[in-house]
Each structure stands twice: as C-alpha cells, then as structure tokens.
C-alpha cells in the first residue's frame, strides 16, 4: 500500500512545471552553452581529460542536487496549507512521511543526471568506460541523498513564501562555493578550504573521480554520509517539535 503512496508522490513531484524547468531543462541548457563557450581542450594536469567531460559531471551533479533539494523544500507548502495535518490523521507516521519525501526527492534527482549524461554522449561526444559511466550516473545519484534530506529541513524551517529564498540561497552557496558551477581551483586557498566542507563539493568529487581518478572516493563517501546523518537528525528534531506545537 505504501508503494501506491510513493508512486503518487513521485508523480506529483515530476509533474510540477517549475521542477521540469529548473531542474531538468536548466542544467542541460547550461551544459550545452558552457561546452560551446569553454569546452575546448583538456583540463590542465589531467592526462587529457576534456573540459566537456568535467562540465558534464558538474552539471549532472548540479541538476541532481537541485531536484532532490527542491522536492523536500516543497513540503513547506504542504505544511502551510494544512495537508500535513490531514496526513497526521492517517496511519502514516512522521518518520514514514519524512522517509517517503526523502525517497521521492532522491528519485527525482535521477532524470536530470541521466539527461545531462545523455546529452553528453549523444550531442557532445563524451567517451567514458562502463565503470566510469556507472559512477557518473549511479554514484552521483546516490550522492544526492543528503540534499534530499537538506530539502526536507528547508521545508520544515521555511514558510511557503520564504522557501524560494532558502533554495536560491542554498543553490548559490552549494553550487558556486561547492565548486560545482565554478572549479575550486580558481578560489583563493582560504575559500577552497571552506568549500571542502560543503556536501556539494564532495558530490562533485564523485563524478570527477570517474574522470581524474578515485583518490578521494572514500573521503567523499564519508563526508556525504556524515552530512546525511546531520541533516536527518535536524529534520527529525524539527518535525517532532513542530508536531508538538500544532
């Protein structure tokens, strides 16, 4: 019976026109434009990894984490409208609701990752080994889990009106500072130290590991798992407090 619930939640998330625009179309368009503008040649000191490949894994990661985060953040609307109260009148437990929403957030992160990768192969001629593709698509997808949970936290903290400000702010902090939209290498060293704490930096390392070698993979997994635990702890605490207050 819960699969029917999950399916309907996923359908809602995927149907949202803003979702399609900002998290599926937007990263693909930026990818194509970026390749046209900066896609010539290879990344320095990389044994000839083309810039196009780096842009592809970066924008796949960007689309993935934005989709995951936005889905969770939209729970702010359900909270404001009283729908969460209606759900409290069903056997669905608070943790069940949060897990379902987190799962849907993670699920909808897959389309942008797949789409950017497909454009990479079919349009921009990116070549990778089978294992590298698995890491770029499936690895990056799994790595969006902390962002789905972060989105839920935003959904619990923001109101329906301020949700947009929260997600835009996080997009800038995580996208730019995390080295997804611009490479960390261009930052002064103090700033790159900050960016290496952010979950988005470690998300980008998953895809980039497939291109440049997996020296950082263990560290990336640990960081992402740690962020997932921290965000989940905050979400559950916040949700319980919110329930008690209503």
């Amino acid at each position, binding site marked *: *019976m*819960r699969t*029917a*619930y999950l399916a*309907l*939640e996923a*359908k*809602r998330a995927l*149907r*949202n026109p803003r979702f399609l625009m900002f998290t599926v179309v937007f990263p693909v368009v930026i990818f194509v434009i970026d390749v046209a503008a900066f896609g010539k040649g290879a990344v320095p000191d990389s044994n000839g990894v083309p810039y196009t490949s780096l842009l592809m894994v970066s924008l796949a990661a960007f689309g993935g984490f934005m989709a995951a985060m936005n889905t969770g953040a939209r729970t702010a*609307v*359900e909270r404001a*409208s*009283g*729908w969460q*109260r*209606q*759900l*409290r*009148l*069903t*056997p*669905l437990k608070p943790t069940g609701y949060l897990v379902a929403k987190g799962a849907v957030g993670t699920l909808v992160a897959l389309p942008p990752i797949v789409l950017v990768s497909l454009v990479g192969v079919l349009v921009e001629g990116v070549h990778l080994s089978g294992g590298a593709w698995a890491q770029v698509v499936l690895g990056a997808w799994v790595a969006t889990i902390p962002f789905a949970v972060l989105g839920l936290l935003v959904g619990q903290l923001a109101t329906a009106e301020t949700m947009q400000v929260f997600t835009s702010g996080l997009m800038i902090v995580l996208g730019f500072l995390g080295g997804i939209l611009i490479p960390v290498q261009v930052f002064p060293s103090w700033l790159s130290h900050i960016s290496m704490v952010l979950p988005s930096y470690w998300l980008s390392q998953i895809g980039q590991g497939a291109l440049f070698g997996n020296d950082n993979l263990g560290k990336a997994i640990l960081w992402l798992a740690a962020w997932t635990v921290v965000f989940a702890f905050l979400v559950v605490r916040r949700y319980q407090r919110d329930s*008690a207050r*209503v």
Partner: protein
Amino acid sequence: MNEATRGTGYGQQGPGRAEVSAGAAVSLSGLRKHYGEVRAVDGVDLVIAPGEVVALLGPNGAGKSTTVDMLLGLSNPDSGEARIFGQTPRDAVAAGAVGAMLQEGSLLDDATVGETVAMIASLHRKPMPVAEALRRANVEDLSGRMCTKLSGGQKQRVRFAVALVCDPHLLVLDEPTSAMDVGTRREFWQSMKEFTEAGKTVLFATHYLDEAEEFADRVVLMRSGRIVADGSVAEVRSVVSGRTLTAQVSGATQSAMRTLPGVRGADVRGERVALDCADSDATIRALITTYPQAYDIEIKALGLEEAFLALTGDNEGGTR
C-alpha cells in the same frame, strides 16, 4: 448525561466518568489546554454514544477547534484525556476508526481530486474504494480535475471524500459547510445522511444554528473553553424560558407595550409588535383586552438562536 446543564461545568466531573464512557464513541474527560494566559479549553467533559450526531456550537474563540484538535490527537491536552472507542486518538487514527474534515485543511495544488483521495486511501489499512468515497461525497465527476480548479464548495466536498475514504466509524467535521452556498450545503447534508443512517457517529462544529437544529440529535454549546449546555435541540432551547409574541397592533407604542404584564422587552415598528415574554399567557390576555383589534397574533417558543445568544452572549468569561 443528556439533561441540559447550564453553568460552569464543574458538576460534571467526578469518579463515575470512566464507567460512563465505556463503549462510548467519544469520551473527553477533564480536557484542558492553555496557551499562556488564554484558557482555550478549560475543563471539558463530553461523552458521545455510538450513532449520535452531535453539533458543537459556540462563538469564535470558544474552544471548539482546540477541542477537536485534542480529540484527534493533533495536539496534546495539558491535562485530561480523550478517547475514541476506548482507544487513544493516535491508535484510533492508526486503526482508521476516525475520519476528519479540518477547518483549515486544504488540498494538494498539484494533484487531481482522484489522486488526492487515492493518496489518503493508500495510507489506510482498510479503506473503502476511492470511487465509492468520491460517489458518496458527490464528486465523482470531478475525479480528473486538478484540486486548484475547484470552487469553494467543491473543495469542501472533496475534503469530505478524503475524510470518508478510511471508512471510519466516527466522523469529526470542523465547520464543514463554511464555504458552501445554500444548495451545496443541502447536498452535503444529504450525503451525510447516508453516513449517519448506517449507524455511524458524527461530531460537527458549526456556526450555522439551522444546521444544528436540523441535523443534530444533540447540541453541545461551548463558551470560554467550557461546555455551557448539552442536550437535545429541544432541551437546549428550553434553557431559555419564555416565548416571543408577535402581532399587528394599531396605535401601539414602545412604552405601552412594555407595561403589559409578562413582557421583558418590546420591539415596535409601525403596527408590527414583537414582544419578548416571560409569561406569554398573561401578556396575550392583557393584549386582547387592551387592544381588541390586534390581529395576526403568533406565539413562538424561543429558538436555538435565542438560546445560543442567551448562553453565550454575556462576556464575563472573556473569550479572548
């Protein structure tokens, strides 16, 4: 339990409550909820037997919604307890024994009517078929429509389907008809009849007295967080003694009407006279003697509305 009680409600507490509430659909005992200085609910005792249709009346801020929230387990009482068919609210909700239409509950803005009801159904253990819930709420034809494209009255009916789909034994409705026009309200109560005729229990909060009068077996009146009257419509009505006498009296004046025996208050508009009588028998005798040409005379018992005003009108409690 059913006699009209007027006053503070103190007399309702006592050791006998637990036995009384055994087998009850709803049992609230000593329920209290304070928000800072505001005593939103200040000692509510209420037992509803299975099959009863009970209207919860009261002015804004009387504590109706807070009481409903505690009954449903959406908020915890500061003291006292709520039971639904002997279970805690949470257990009753988990068992699908109670369905509710909340006052501010809205629908999803990115799902169709059918999907919304199906989503709630998918979470319950023994739901009725979605199509059945839609039919009973009279919204079958709206199944494929997005919830954002509904009128206020249609939204309420869809929310009724959401409340029904778990196939509950108890329905709790917080101002269910507030966004409906007269025709839709009638249809809504028609669908409700199908539910109550199956022997199910309904508790509804409303500010439409005519709805309470027409559809409830029993009326519970709240003021300042307390129950001030509880009984059948006739019983609650009788709490306010006296009758209204109306007549056409030529040459009537306000002061002359007031001096008639048995009259508490008079309203004179041209020839039309409305008298609030403590003893209408004495008044009519005097009226006929003094004004033999008086005609169109009508004497009515005070309605629920007058009872409501009399019981909830004075503000010594301060409702917020």
